[in-house]
């Protein structure tokens, strides 16, 4: 479910920016790190910490939009790729310095331990992740489908020239999308940061999984990205249970390569022209 949040944020940024945000994985890590540091500093209960982390990484998303995405809107997508890769390196190196290289654990959301429902043992943290994840996905869906803001965000994603033509302040909606994307990444980082450690070098891995989810689910499609992310999660769980983590990752990469080799235009094709 946390993958779904990562992929959801990734696809929002992708559609708004018209290019892959290679720093997205590092925003996730930054979310975990923010949870560690702000949690230790303020000593707040996790449930209050969550919106603070979301806000903080949302602001980082705004900075990313202003620095690395909007100024390059008229250049080829590769320019945005490189700018966001540089941004990713900046975040990673800053975190390496701040954390002195030692991985940390983020506070848990719902306390540790587990309980039984109908004979199944359910960990509190995984359950909390699923609940928070589902709530956020539902909230984003509602925003995109049923509010004026969401429709405008979709309009900007579909055709920014037309959006500008009908008077939508495109830059503002790109920034807004990146803020939302950052907030989702931050929350995902917080949730993942308790189960797995937070280490500065994880960013590329998160980014790659979101990238794969979006490529498999249909480039630019929000439901596709969610399905892709859930699929990856389930796939990894089963393969790694059977053959170990390394084989799970390897099988995933090979699967992606096979898909790209057989269907160079993506698994489901692309709905509207090219949106690299």
């Amino acid at each position, binding site marked *: 479910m946390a993958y779904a949040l990562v992929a959801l944020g990734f696809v929002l940024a992708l559609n708004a920016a018209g290019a892959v945000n290679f720093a997205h994985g590092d925003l996730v890590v930054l979310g975990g790190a923010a949870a560690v540091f702000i949690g230790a500093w303020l000593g707040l209960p996790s449930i209050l910490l969550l919106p603070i982390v979301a806000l903080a990484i949302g602001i980082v998303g705004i900075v990313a939009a202003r620095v690395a995405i909007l100024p390059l809107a008229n250049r080829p997508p590769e320019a945005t790729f*490189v700018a966001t890769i*540089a941004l990713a*390196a900046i975040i990673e*190196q800053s975190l390496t310095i701040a954390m002195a290289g030692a991985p940390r654990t983020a506070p848990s959301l719902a306390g540790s331990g587990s309980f039984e429902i109908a004979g199944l043992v359910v960990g509190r943290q995984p359950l909390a992740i699923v609940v928070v994840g589902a709530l956020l996905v539902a909230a984003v869906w509602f925003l995109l489908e049923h509010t004026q803001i969401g429709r405008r*965000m979709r*309009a900007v*994603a579909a055709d920014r*020239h037309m959006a500008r033509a009908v008077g939508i302040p495109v830059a503002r909606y790109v920034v807004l999308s990146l803020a939302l994307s950052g907030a989702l990444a931050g929350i995902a980082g917080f949730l993942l940061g308790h189960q797995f450690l937070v280490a500065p070098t994880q960013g590329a891995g998160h980014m790659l999984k979101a990238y*794969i989810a979006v490529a498999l689910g249909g480039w630019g499609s929000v439901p596709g990205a969610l399905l892709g992310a859930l699929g990856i999660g389930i796939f990894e769980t089963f393969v790694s249970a059977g053959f170990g983590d390394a084989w799970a990752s390897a099988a995933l990469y090979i699967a992606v390569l096979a898909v790209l080799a057989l269907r160079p235009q993506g698994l489901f094709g692309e709905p509207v022209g090219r949106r*690299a």
Partner: protein
Amino acid sequence: MRPSSFWLIVLVLPPVMALTVLPPFGQRMVTLAGIYGLMGLGYQLVFGQLGALNLAQGALFGLGAYAAALTAPVLGPFALIAAIVAAALPAALVAGPLLRLQSHYFALATLALASLVNLAAVHAESLTGGANGLAGFATALPRGPVLLVMVWVCLIAGVLLYAWLFEGTLGKKAHLLRDAPLLAAAHGIDAAAWRFTAFVAGAALAGLAGACSAALSGVVSPDVTGFSVMVLCLTLVVLGGARHPMGAVLGAVLAVGLPELLRELQGAWLLAYAVATLAVVLWAPEGLAGLIDRLRGARRPPPVPPGLPDIVPPVPGAQRLTVDGVSKSFGGVQALADVSLLVDRGEIVGLIGPNGSGKTTLLNVISGLDHADEGAIALDDHRVEGLPAHRVARAGIGRTFQALELAGDTRSADLARAVATGAAFLLLDEPAAGIGDGERRALEAFLAKVRDSGRGVLIVDHDIELLSRVCDRLVCLDRGRAIAAGRPAEVRADARVRASFLGLDGVAA
């Protein structure tokens, strides 16, 4: 461009200094810079010249390093050749399917391949030594000053060859291929062969660089296949200049030199390097080498495109273009439904609408490239809807084409040609797509002259701001229907225009 004596001196200076005045530690640094330079030079072929974001260059570097480490005990110095093959061969095998992919899928596929190589390096312990890596092979490989000389001779030769190759027609071809693949094909350039060659040559250089780095450090661990090598390679090429012959060398020297200069900052040098890269992407896209050229005044100013004529003479002919109730469908899809509009002499009419709303189809139907199923098109009283395209043109309707595939100067030439035909009415398809601000202003001024000459213009473009400034009226199409027409401000404020666009169904977010 031919490397100037300035750059030749810069190129030769590091190895000469290393051999004459620097201590062994300094020699080591210069060797390392040379190695990064080789990797970067290979990357320039793919990223700079093909414009493809290859994220596997680091992995290819790692393949070279492992191949050298594994074969050195048997092959001795010839292990370097084995390393080149070990990188170039897999690259050649995957190049076919890989190079067909669009930019974002290409980046993903290369990233997945690189991750596979990294996984193999960590987990195939019997072959690679796992996380501990391999050691104790370096005695069989060139070392010390010999390695330094070898690396820099290869690098200097590579840079000179690169400069020589891309100075002339090949550089122009590469440029055309990057920016206008279809036009390149029309000029008889074999894109597939050229992309394959560049990709494999880039891989070979990465393999050689990897082998030399193994020889230099004496150990090979999975780190050499990691993403950080890739990021270093990308940033050094971007920082130095992705296409400039000296770009990789300059970036590599900085990558090795900066940490020494910024020693007090310790770990922060990578941070500084990343910040510098971002700054270069934003403000000096041609890289530091290009920037230095500009400051030295060495680079010739970009050639002035043949440009647009200064004077647009008036032309005789019909006074009004009428489109009345035109419909057109392709298969079952209604591309145009009952579209009517007028263009008078001395008037610019802009055509807007979402992608696929029928704008280009309308221009095609008016200019006779397609024929309407229903409706009339007339110049004054002279009906033209049944005429073939060349007769429509002779009757007084000039046409430019969607210029996505044309470079800037070709585009101006297309526009100038359409005006020179003496047509009283011009149909312009996306004349402003992909041009810079300066060209955009020139285009605006030119359109005003065309209007003042008494020609009528029907123009399609995505740049709504430009259209609002130059057009007297706008017509908005939505799914083949004209849903609004009037002064630009009115059309942009029209509720139907906004709704047609915002209600765009079937497009997820």
